[in-house]
């Protein structure tokens, strides 16, 4: 049996396989590397980084829901300086492509971050987080505003030649409009989806269970929603899509590829089984072999409508 080609092209970004680790769910890679050989992964998307370190929200930050979890971390991160001095060198040593996810409170901050990081050899691409539901500034006031997305993409495009991925918010009416804007302004790809706004209340003391009041929903509960968003973008806009949302096993990953994704990111599943990415990679390989798929990228958007 001939070998399956698992490599994928996401705009100008070439990756050895389509299994990526999602931002905020693997930190900067050091802890998860005790469980998996990062060399085998398509790429790691690092925890959202901002110009200055961020402390994040007070606890309780995490809450389990039915087949899902809410988080309100609030973009805790070490800041760009420490990221460059400590985190990137480690990942380069692991030989894993780095996609650097950036969060910011102003357009200028995004641009500044990209400018600084653009000089770093190890960074293969930027993922621009305009869709964090857990911060007051730099989250959804960007992600839910087409003009903002337009401006951010345009300004970032002006300062880097590296691939730009815009991470879209699902908390909008038509996600494809945002993908369209991103495309127009020169983004190489979009990733979808970030978490969906949710909340929960303690019925004893009537307080929100999360200190931040609302959080972002992730995990298997959101998979059907995420798939519909990916499908919507794929139907309407010609731009590579990185599918994210509730992927727990290789079957889910295949479903996202069929629905229109060129690659996928794994989030919540890393907390439950830090080796999941490698299992999914193996499952994907076997699926391709069984179905005589030589090239995994031929699965992208291969849905059959009547």
């Amino acid at each position: 049996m001939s070998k399956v080609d698992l490599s994928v092209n996401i705009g100008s970004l070439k990756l050895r396989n389509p299994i990526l680790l999602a931002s905020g769910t693997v930190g900067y890679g050091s802890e998860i590397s005790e469980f998996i050989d990062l060399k085998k992964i398509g790429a790691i998307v690092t925890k959202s980084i901002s110009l200055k370190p961020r402390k994040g929200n007070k606890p309780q930050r995490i809450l389990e829901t039915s087949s899902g979890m809410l988080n309100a971390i609030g973009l805790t991160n070490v800041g760009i300086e420490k990221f460059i001095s400590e985190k990137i060198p480690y990942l380069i040593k692991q030989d894993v492509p780095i996609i650097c996810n950036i969060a910011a409170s102003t357009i200028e901050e995004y641009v500044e971050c990209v400018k600084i990081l653009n000089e770093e050899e190890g960074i293969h691409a930027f993922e621009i987080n305009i869709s964090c539901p857990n911060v007051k500034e730099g989250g959804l006031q960007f992600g839910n505003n087409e003009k903002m997305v337009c401006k951010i993409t345009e300004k970032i495009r002006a300062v880097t030649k590296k691939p730009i991925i815009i991470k879209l918010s699902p908390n909008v009416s038509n996600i494809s409009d945002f993908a369209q804007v991103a495309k127009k302004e020169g983004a190489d790809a979009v990733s979808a989806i970030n978490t969906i706004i949710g909340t929960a209340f303690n019925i004893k003391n009537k307080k929100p269970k999360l200190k931040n009041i609302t959080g972002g929903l992730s995990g298997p509960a959101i998979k059907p929603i995420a798939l519909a968003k990916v499908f919507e973008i794929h139907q309407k806009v010609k731009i590579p899509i990185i599918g994210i949302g509730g992927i727990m096993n290789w079957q889910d990953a295949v479903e996202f590829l069929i629905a229109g994704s060129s690659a996928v990111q794994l989030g919540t599943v890393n907390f439950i089984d830090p080796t999941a990415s490698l299992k999914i990679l193996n499952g994907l390989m076997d699926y391709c072999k069984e179905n005589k798929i030589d090239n995994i990228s031929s699965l992208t958007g291969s849905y059959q409508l009547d």
Partner: protein
Amino acid sequence: MTITEAQIEEIIELEYNIHLFKVKSPEIANVINPGEFLNIRISDLPIPLLRRPFSVCDVEDDFFYLMFNTMGMGTKLLSLKKPGEYLDVLGPLGNGFNFEGDFDRAVILGGGLGVAPFPYLTRKIKDKKEISTFIGGRTKSDLITYGLENIHVSTDDGSYGFKGNVVELLEINFDNLKNDKLKIFACGPTPMLVAAKKFAEKENIECELSTECVMACGFGICQGCPIQSSSDEDKFLLVCKDGPVFNSKEIIL
């Protein structure tokens, strides 16, 4: 830090609703330290979705023990497991107690199920140090003495032992202890840890607190379990990675 399938050897019901699992796992038993914990996947289904953290309660040869009560769905489902079944265990996790230091007598404070990590600590130190254990509960059936030594008890409702909380119990017994060089090891509900911290600071005694927090990953990748650092206002420590055991001076509760 590994993921293993560990077989349940034996299940002991200590009190109504309080379970002790004896689990076979040389991988864990041979390396885990008192105060460290394990993150357990209770079901293959996405409910419960996340692992649930439990302190290592004790270790004997190739076996580790878990002690838990049923709180919600996860612990309920765990309590329904039978000997012979396997647990999906991730660990050892976190930093445990530092019990090698310069002290003569360990003062162990356990509130309710907060006694869970102390049988193992007791086992490790009883040949080298004196131990005074103070445990408290709301009522008599909350008191679990399994694996503990030299025990003093209190209950909130006075149904057994001293009527009051466990730190008050320590206070009234303090005269008998204070001539030794002491170190406090405390685990229990946050108000109890606050009281223990305050008492330790007042009396200038070394004190380690085993803290709790809702967790997702248990090993530092989700940032879900912050606890305020006392040395740096702008910094949270992580309960799962920097703790769960902290020197009382390191953190603000």
